C-alpha cells in the first residue's frame, strides 16, 4: 500500500479536526496508525464508528467516487498541497479538491459572515472580494448563503479566482441553491472538502471546516456576523494561527453586525473601513 492509499483509508475513517487523532498521527505517522486501526488496538467502544468505517473502506470505490465528482485527492507533499495547512494544530490527513488546485497556493483573503446579511453586508462583501481580486489575491469562503455567496460572486464578477471550502463531501452541493455558483467557482478556482465523498453537511463539520478557511488564507475578514455566529469561530481559528483578523463595523442597531462589534471590542479583530485600509494592513505583514 502506498502512502496515498493509506491516507485515503484514514481520511475516510477519521473526521478532520480531532485533537486525539491529530496527536496520534503527528507522533506515530500514518503507516503506524493504519496498522493499529487494522489491528483494532484502540478502545473498541470509543472507536467503534472509526473501526466500522475503516473496515468497510474500499480504495477503488472511493477513488471512483472522487473521480466521478471531478475531484482529486491531495496529501501533504503533493505538488499543489497548500503548505499553509501545515500550520494547523490538527492538519488535515488529506483534502479533496475540485477545480484548479494551483489556486490553493496563491495569496488569498478569507471573507466570512452571516447567512442572513443585510444589503449593506452583501455590498461590502462583494466590494472587498472584487477589490482584492483586482490586487491579485484570491478569495476564500465557505460557499454558504449570504456573505459567503456575496464574496464568491464579487470575486467572480471581477474575473478573479475564488475558493470554497465546503462542509459536505465533494460530490454534494450544499446548499443546493448554490450548485451553479459552485460550477462557476470551479472554472478558475477550486472547491475543497475535508470529508469523504457522500458525507452530508452536518453541523459539527461546519466548525472543522472553518479552521480550513482560516488556514488557507493569509488573513480573515468578518463582514457581518450575529452575536452567535460560526464566522466568529473562523476568526478565532485565524487568530490561533497568528493570521490577521479584520472586521467591518456596522450600525449598532443592526443585529447582524453585533458579532463584528464584539470582535472589535475585544481587540480580537482590527477594524477596517475600506479595501485600501484592509490591503495596507495585511500587505505590510
Amino acid at each position, binding site marked *: 500500500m502506498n502512502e496515498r492509499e493509506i491516507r485515503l483509508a484514514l481520511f475516510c475513517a477519521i473526521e478532520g479536526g480531532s485533537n486525539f487523532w491529530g496527536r496520534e498521527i503527528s507522533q506515530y505517522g500514518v503507516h503506524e496508525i493504519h496498522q493499529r486501526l487494522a489491528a483494532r488496538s484502540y478502545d473498541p467502544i470509543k472507536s467503534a464508528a472509526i473501526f466500522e468505517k475503516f473496515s468497510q473502506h474500499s480504495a477503488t470505490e472511493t477513488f471512483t467516487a472522487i473521480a466521478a465528482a471531478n475531484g482529486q485527492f491531495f496529501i501533504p507533499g503533493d505538488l499543489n498541497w497548500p503548505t499553509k495547512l501545515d500550520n494547523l494544530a490538527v492538519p488535515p490527513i488529506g483534502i479533496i479538491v475540485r477545480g484548479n488546485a494551483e489556486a490553493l497556493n496563491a495569496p488569498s483573503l478569507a471573507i466570512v459572515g*452571516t*447567512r*442572513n446579511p*443585510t*444589503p*449593506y453586508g*452583501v*455590498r461590502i462583501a*462583494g*466590494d472587498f472580494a*472584487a477589490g482584492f481580486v483586482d490586487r491579485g489575491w484570491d478569495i476564500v469562503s465557505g460557499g454558504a*448563503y*449570504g456573505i459567503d455567496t456575496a464574496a464568491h*460572486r*464579487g470575486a467572480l*464578477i471581477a474575473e478573479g479566482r475564488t475558493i470554497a471550502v465546503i462542509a459536505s463531501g465533494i460530490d454534494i452541493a450544499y446548499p443546493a441553491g448554490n450548485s451553479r455558483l459552485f460550477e462557476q467557482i470551479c472554472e478558475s478556482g477550486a472547491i475543497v472538502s475535508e470529508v469523504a465523498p457522500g458525507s452530508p453537511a452536518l453541523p459539527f463539520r461546519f466548525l472543522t471546516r472553518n479552521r480550513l478557511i482560516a488556514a488557507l488564507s493569509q488573513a480573515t475578514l468578518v463582514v457581518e456576523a*450575529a*452575536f452567535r455566529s460560526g464566522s466568529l469561530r473562523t476568526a478565532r481559528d485565524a487568530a490561533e494561527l497568528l493570521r490577521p483578523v479584520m472586521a467591518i463595523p456596522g*450600525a449598532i*442597531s443592526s*443585529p*447582524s453586525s*453585533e458579532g463584528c462589534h464584539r470582535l472589535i471590542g475585544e481587540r480580537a479583530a482590527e477594524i477596517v473601513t475600506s479595501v485600501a485600509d484592509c490591503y495596507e494592513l495585511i500587505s505590510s505583514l
Partner: protein
Amino acid sequence: MTLGKTQSIALNGLVGSLVEIEVDIADGIPSFALLGLPDAALSESRDRVRAALINCGQLWPNRKVTVSLSPAWLPKSGSAFDLSIALAIEIAQGALPQGPFTATAILGELALDGKIRAVRGVLPALIAAYKSGVKRAIVPQENVEEAALLTHMEILTFANLSQLIRWATTGEIVQAPALSMEVAELSAEVDFADVAGQQRARFAAEVAASGGHHLLLIGPPGAGKTMIASRIPTILPPLTLEQALEVTAVHSISGGLTQRSALSRIAPIIAPHHTASRVALVGGGSQVIKPGSCSLAHHGVLFIDEAPECALGVLDALRQPLESGTITITRNVGNITFPARFLLVLAANPCPCGKYSGKGLGCSCTSLQVRRYLGKLSGPLMDRIDMRVQVEPVGRTEMAEIELGEASGDIRERVVTARATSAARFAGESWTLNSEIPARELRNRYRPERSALNFLHDELDREQLTARGLHKVIRLAWTLADLTGHTTPTLDDVKRAYSLREGAEL
C-alpha cells in the same frame, strides 16, 4: 290589461345591462313562473313580492303568473329585481298604470312588509342605465346618495311599496329626499403628528404618496409600522371627482358604502388581515363575481400587515394588478375586469418572533428561520416594491419629545406640489405618476443626470442591481427630485433612491 312591463339592470362586475321585466297574468291553475336564468336569491323573490304586495293591501293574482326577465340568456342574480317584479305584476293586473314606469330603471329589494331595502351596485347599474338612454330611476332610500352622483338622471326614492303605489296613481311624493352633495372632509382622527420620531419611515411614506411607489416597512412589533401605514391616506391628495366616482362604483357593488360615504374624496385604505384568501384579495366568487381588497383600494392604499404570514401565493396574486392597474377575474359565468390601481404598503417583522433588531439578543429564532421569514415574500413581488424601510424602535428622546411631529396637512401640501410638478411634466403623456413612467422613456426623455446614470451602470456591472431595479431606482429618483425641486434627478437623488430601495444606508 294582463301584461306589465318594467325595467331594471343586471350587473356583471362593473358592467350593467338593461333588463326588461315582463309579467303576463293568464287564466289557469294558480302558479308563478320566473324565467330568464335567475339565481337562488332571485328565485326567492316570488315569496318576498307576494308578501309585500299583500301586506301593502294589494291583491295577489290567483292565476297563472309568468315573469320573464329578458334578455333571457343573461344570468341574473340578487334581490334588486324584487321591486320591478312587484310593480310589473301590479301593472299586469291593472292596479297601476304603465305610464309612470316607461324608461325608468327600478332597483330595490322588498321586505315582507313592503319596505324597500338597499341593494348593492346602484351606481354602476345606473351608469349602465344612463348609457342605454334611461333618464329616470327609482332606488331604495339608503342608496339615494350614490345614485345622486348621476346628476343628469331623475332619481326617485320611496320608503315602501305603498308610497310608490300612491305616487304612481296620484303623482304625490310623500317625502322628497334631501340630497347632500357635500364633499366629505378628510377626517381628523388620524394624523401624522401622532407618530413619534421615525424620520426615515415618514419620509418614505411621503415619497410613496408623491410618486405612487410601493413600500415595505420592516421592524420589530410596536415600532409604529401600522401607525405609519394607516396615516398614508391622510397625506394623499384628495381624489378627483372622476376618481371618486370610480372608487364609489367599486365599493357600491361590494356593498361597502355603509362604511364609506358615497362621494368621499378621501383615498380609501383597505387593510385585509394576513389570513385573507387569494379570492378575498383579488376578487372572485362562483355566481356573483365581487371585487376583492385590491379593487376596493383603487386610488388608495392596500395595507397588508404581517405580510410574510400570508398564505403561500396569496400576495403573488397581486402581481398582475400591480403591473396593469386592473384585475381580470375569469369564472364560468364570464370575465370581469375591475380597476385596481393602488399603493401597496406591506409591513413585516424582521423574524418570526419579531425581536431580531438592535443587538438581537432577545430573538429566539434560528438563523434559518430569520432568513426564511422575509424570503416568504417572493422575489418577483419584492422586485415590484420600490422602497424597503427599516423601522427602528422609537428611542427615548423621540418618545420624550413634547412637540408633535409634522402634521399630515403640511406633508400633504408637499405631496400635492410634487404631484403637480410631475403631472405638469407628463402633460402630454399617458401617465401621471413617476412610478408609471415606462422603461423605454426612462432611457430616453426621462433620463437622470449623466453622473447618476454612470453610478447606476456601475452597480449593474457589479450585479448589485437588476435591470428592473435600475428602472425602479430612476422612477424613485424622479420623485425625490420633484420633492427637492430639482428639474432632473441628480447623482444625490439617485443615491438616495438607491438606498431607499435597498433598505440600507449607502
